[in-house]
């Protein structure tokens, strides 16, 4: 086959393997957070690959940020619903 460049999945896996010393030095709780961040980048492999970047980890970082933004938006929405509920209860409409 004509493929010479490794796939984006393989490149990310290799980068993660390179980060193992970094990960090991983190506190146990932080290690789990890092694992979550790295896993979130895997949801956007197609977009990272499509970016055609020489250093795909830059696009992977953007994908992690995107997942964080999505999580924040979801939490904001939950807070809004809770706030509305609080206001409703406070006004005695519950």
């Amino acid at each position, binding site marked *: *086959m*004509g*493929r*010479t*460049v490794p*796939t984006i999945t393989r490149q990310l896996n290799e980068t993660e393997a390179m980060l193992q010393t970094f990960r090991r030095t983190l506190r146990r709780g932080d290690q789990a957070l890092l*694992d*979550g961040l790295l*896993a*979130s980048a*895997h*949801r*956007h*492999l*197609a977009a990272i*690959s*499509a970016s*055609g*970047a*020489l250093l795909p980890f830059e696009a992977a970082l953007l994908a992690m940020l995107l997942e964080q933004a999505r999580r924040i938006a979801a939490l904001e929405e939950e807070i809004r619903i809770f706030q509305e509920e609080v206001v409703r209860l406070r006004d005695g409409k519950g």
Partner: protein
Amino acid sequence: MARVEKTGWLMDVYTRPSGELVCWLLSEDGQRWLLPMDFPVTFYAAGSLAVLRQAWRFLRGRGVQLSRQVRRDLFHGERVVLSATLDLPGRLPETYRRLAQAFPVLDYYDADLPLSVRFVAGTQVPLLGRCRFETDGQRLLGLQPLESAWEMQPSLPPLRVMEIECDAEPALHPPQEIVIRCDRRCYRFPLQPLRAFVVNLQALLGTYDPDVILTRYGDTWLFPFLSEHAPSFNPNRDEQMKVEFRRERSLFAYGQVLYRGAQALLFGRWHIDRCNAALFAEIGLTGALEMARVTGLGVQEAVRKSPGAGITAMQMQTALRDGVLIPAVKQQAEATRTLVSLIRYDRGGMVYQPLVGVHRHVAELDFASMYPAIMVRYNISPETLYQRDAPAGLIPRTLQPLLVKRLALKHCLHTLDRRDSRVSDLKARQTALKWLLVVCFGYLGYKNARFGRVESHEAVTAISRELLLQAKENAEDMGFTILHMYVDSLFVKREDTRTEADFLPLAEKIQAETGIGVTLEGVYRWLVFLPACRDQRIPVANRYFGVFEDGTLKYRGIALRRHDTCPYVAQTQLDILSCLAQADDPREQWKEAWGLVNQRVRSLQRRQAAIEGLQMAVKLSRDPQAFRRPSAAAQAARQLQAEGVAVRAGMRLFFWFTQQGVSVAPPAAEEVDWDHYARLVLRAAGEILDVLQPVEKKQQYYLPLLK
């Protein structure tokens, strides 16, 4: 005998030791003909004129007609060539070999083509195609086609089939008895004394005169055994010919090590070894005939070779008809590329990671034969690259009729009731064509393909990625959520869509927008996308299971699909899926599914499972001596070697897990490692069920079973 004209079918062509070509024909009156025919063949050499002159002198006086011609090379344009024509086609390989040895600097063309491909291109009579022929009983005097290879309902020759099987797998135990089935009769013969067996076999061949001999282990054992111990036995219809043996080999293709057993080819009838014919289990005799009809490769070759050889043969036919030279050795190397260019263009199809979990009312939309359709629609061929408005290239012209025929067969299948007697034949034929279309894309980028060019290969994937993005945008514009996209298919859902009719407008819109046919594979009642084993948060492409609205299951990437899963574990996983399929939501059946797992694990722990269901099958990835660690496959390989069996990379080995390691012979119940099989069942169950429930609930069911 006076000249007679007959109608019938062209079955095969081959050359006799004298070098003359022989046609095997079957006339409508049931008569079988083996008729020699005049069929001169030509090959070409190109290069510096001084060397060509020397080559001319080398060939002069060797029964070769020589001339100077100008012919077209697909990559170099017009070239001055030395044309060498031989009256006896069987002499060409030796003449070419000697010339190439004496003048290695020359470029050679049309020198190593399969004879049948030359013949089909030259006479326009497809193999297995109906034809009219004229003979005086000694030679074939004329041949005209009455049918094309692209006939939707080709007439079928009335074949006589003989089946031969032995009572054991010869690699493990010497067979004692041979079973022969022919014309609804069954004969059993002891192999020893051999003389009596050979006399009986020869008598049956004489009585039934079969066109096809279907065997198990005919390639790797029966015919080599008979050739060694009964050299006077000749199973050919053509008595002037001997059985042609080809050596076994291991090769690396499609990312894996493959093993091709030795081959035993016959003349005037076909021999097909079910255990050594790559696609035969899937496409059967009907599919094999279809493959031979469209590719021009003889039936015996077509069933044993990879579909890549078939697509190459079809490209050769197109080139021969167009007068394009076919290089014996590919001369083009990939051009120098920058790293940025490689990163930008050397990419495969688009894969959108799935949203892990359970989804209901999901539709799967597929682009029909996406890559070949792109090649045809966008005129992608090595010679049309970087050109606007170029005439249709060699690759699109080869693929166009194949694509049309397969889509027509598929359409025909959709219109028929599942119980219709024509369904199995149509399925076999369309599957045979599907495999040709599947490999045609890979061959465009394959470095040794005669008409391959990696830039064309990359163009196809670039267009496919663009089309898939267009499909995604169309779906999102219509309010659908994209759950997963995988190269040529997409999985979508929307709150208000339930039935096929609800998804058809989307399929039609994508088809109109992209110009490539889109089919609705079906609507899933529910579909589960699975995460990676190492991390439940990481999605994995093309790993899912689901049930369509009509109750049909579909699953990809799980143990059930793997060849190295033993039948007991595979059946357990299938039963779990069937159990889940009873509900509108698989989570509702979770407890019942674990009950089933419990039952299967318990029956292993009580040693009640049948030994045959625990047999493992593993393909050997390297030669036994190359293994560094004693894996189960390596242990099995060494046991077989110790028993005197020749084991090669790519072979499929069968064994059982035992308390001592593995055993290639069926072990006694007390020797089996039942706990190991219980763990395999639990792993396969967890693969499906873990994603359906939270961790704490899983442990409630899972942990007691491990004790």
